[in-house]
């Protein structure tokens, strides 16, 4: 990661980069009693990060398992830099141990009976002792876990375990790196640090990295390229900006969980501000509700759907001023309902919106049904989708 000793000569790295494309095209059917599941994907991953984004159960882990050889596809072809790992047509199915696919599981799967150092050395059995020791200490240093070498995996923290699992995989110099939500349970700061180190490592080791996540933040933080997977298929792909901010497929939007979804018509576009104005038709109200939303590739008059998360809407009891939020809409509280530690408010402003607040917010604003309020919505809290 930050150690020149594990870097390859530039020329060799470059040669490797040219032919290190991961080409994946396969299908796999899982018969199940209720509903069978079909995973059918086709994509090419260049060296660098490729994010696999989608809800749990979409088939992301199974996809990685197929690349690693832990699950055998029914048909198709998987190759890395021209080296065929699986070819259904020719009956090629390279065993897991021969694929050189580094795989960091969601559970990390550190060997509990070995120390951190022994874990990291595990994949180097084919090397002479001296070389093994040198590479192990280099990667431990690069991953900043040298001081944990003699510890047991059970005695180290979550972030340290993630680093140990990464080190164990990276030290084997894999041809492709498969990361299954490896940073799942970490706080943002620790996560960002590990990702930085991983990027640094990837600069000298130009291999494709498939990174599975269901976190939007991670998609934006990492993303050179995103594949959105839902129900076993790739439903969208592109840069995070393209996939996540262009009008999304409805399925993609729903998986992120919007409580408020409305029909909208584009009324005006403001490319200079990077926004546009959408009109939301209302029932029995003076006129439509206008929302300023992010700019997407859609012309005036086209219909879209706009999704707003209930937790992204602010409530104010007097007209707020000096705000950066572009949307301030008057409304009236219809009902308040306590759900565990949040309060779900239904507010009428020409249409009904669900707003989530804390118990404290409800009490300090003296909110009650019938109360006049202002809804405050940031432009970027308005998510646009195709109809």
């Amino acid at each position, binding site marked *: 990661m930050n150690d020149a000793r594990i870097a390859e000569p530039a020329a060799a790295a470059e040669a490797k980069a040219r032919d290190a494309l991961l080409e994946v095209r396969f299908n796999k059917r899982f018969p199940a009693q209720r509903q069978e599941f079909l995973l059918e994907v086709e994509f090419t991953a260049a060296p660098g990060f490729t994010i696999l984004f989608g809800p749990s159960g979409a088939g992301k882990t199974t996809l990685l398992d197929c690349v*690693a*050889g*832990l699950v055998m596809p029914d048909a198709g072809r998987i190759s890395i830099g021209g080296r065929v790992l699986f070819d259904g047509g020719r009956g090629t199915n390279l*065993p*897991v*141990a*021969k*694929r*050189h*696919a*580094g*795989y960091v*599981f969601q*559970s*990390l*799967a*550190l*060997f*509990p*009976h070995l120390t951190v150092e022994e874990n990291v050395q*595990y*994949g180097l*059995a*084919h090397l002479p002792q001296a070389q093994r020791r040198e590479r192990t200490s280099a990667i431990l240093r690069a991953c900043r876990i040298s001081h944990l070498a003699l510890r*047991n*995996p*059970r005695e180290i923290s*979550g972030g340290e*375990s993630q680093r140990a699992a990464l080190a*164990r*995989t990276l030290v*084997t110099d894999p041809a492709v790196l498969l990361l299954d939500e490896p940073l799942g349970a970490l706080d943002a700061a620790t996560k960002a640090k590990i990702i930085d180190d991983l990027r640094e490592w990837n600069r000298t080791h130009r291999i494709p990295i498939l990174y599975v996540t269901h976190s939007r933040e991670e998609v934006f933080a990492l993303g050179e390229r995103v594949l959105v997977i839902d129900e076993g298929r790739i439903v969208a792909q592109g840069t995070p900006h393209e996939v996540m901010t262009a009008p999304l497929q409805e399925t993609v939007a729903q998986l992120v969980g919007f409580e408020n979804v409305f029909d909208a018509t584009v009324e005006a576009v403001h490319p200079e501000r990077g926004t546009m104005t959408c009109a939301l038709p209302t029932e029995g109200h003076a006129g439509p509700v206008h929302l300023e939303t992010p700019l997407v590739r859609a012309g005036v008059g086209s219909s879209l759907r706009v999704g707003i998360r209930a937790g992204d809407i602010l409530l104010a009891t007097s007209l707020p001023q000096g705000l950066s939020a572009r949307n301030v809409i008057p409304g009236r509280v219809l009902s308040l309902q306590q759900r565990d530690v949040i309060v779900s408010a239904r507010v009428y402003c020409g249409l009904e919106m669900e707003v989530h607040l804390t118990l404290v917010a409800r009490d300090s604003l003296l909110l009650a049904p019938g109360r006049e309020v202002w809804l405050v919505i940031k432009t970027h809290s308005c998510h646009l989708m195709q109809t």
Partner: protein
Amino acid sequence: MGIDCQAFWLTLQLAVVVSAALLVLGLPVAYWIAFSKRRWKFLVEAVVALPIVLPPTVLGFYVLVALGPRSPVGRWWITLTGHTLAFTFSGLVIGSILYSLPFAVQPFAASFAGVDRRLIAASATLGASPLRTFFRVIAPLSLPGLITGVALSFAHTMGEFGVVLMVGGNIPGVTRTVSIDIFDRVQASDYSGANQTALLLLVLCFLMLAVVYGVNRKAWMVGPAK
């Protein structure tokens, strides 16, 4: 007349040889049972478990027939060594291995199957062959199961009676084990002698079981580290 040291020594030898043999033979069988995806696996499991429910005399009878001069195995052994397997220590070992097979294989297989599959997968993705994965990951994490299997087959062999009597007979120093010695003493109304030997066997078996339960109480976590 105290404890028959010769019978005791013989029984101990038998138990050591049998449990050692089962450790070697039981591992591949247990591995196959734990990881095979064959449809007819249940049949093999049933065959392995058979000695648990089969009367020892039935098992002993068939082993005797199989080892006798009329069976191919028995004939092959005779051409090889010049004497029959029946009523010899080697014959006793073979009978005892079959009789204690489930006591070794079942704990082995259960502990193999309990090893987190992701650890086994991790080993493979790190380039390890199935054999290396077995010795570096599966076996160390199955240690309590391995100890249990060996201890149970040891204790079970120490106390066996029916199979020994059928296959080995009652030849002092060759096939006369402690349980047969106890039986003989009771037949001869030597209750105090029988009691001494029986008590020793009781204590030994208790100690073995205490080891088994003690080991499993402090069982290693067989999942991945958190």
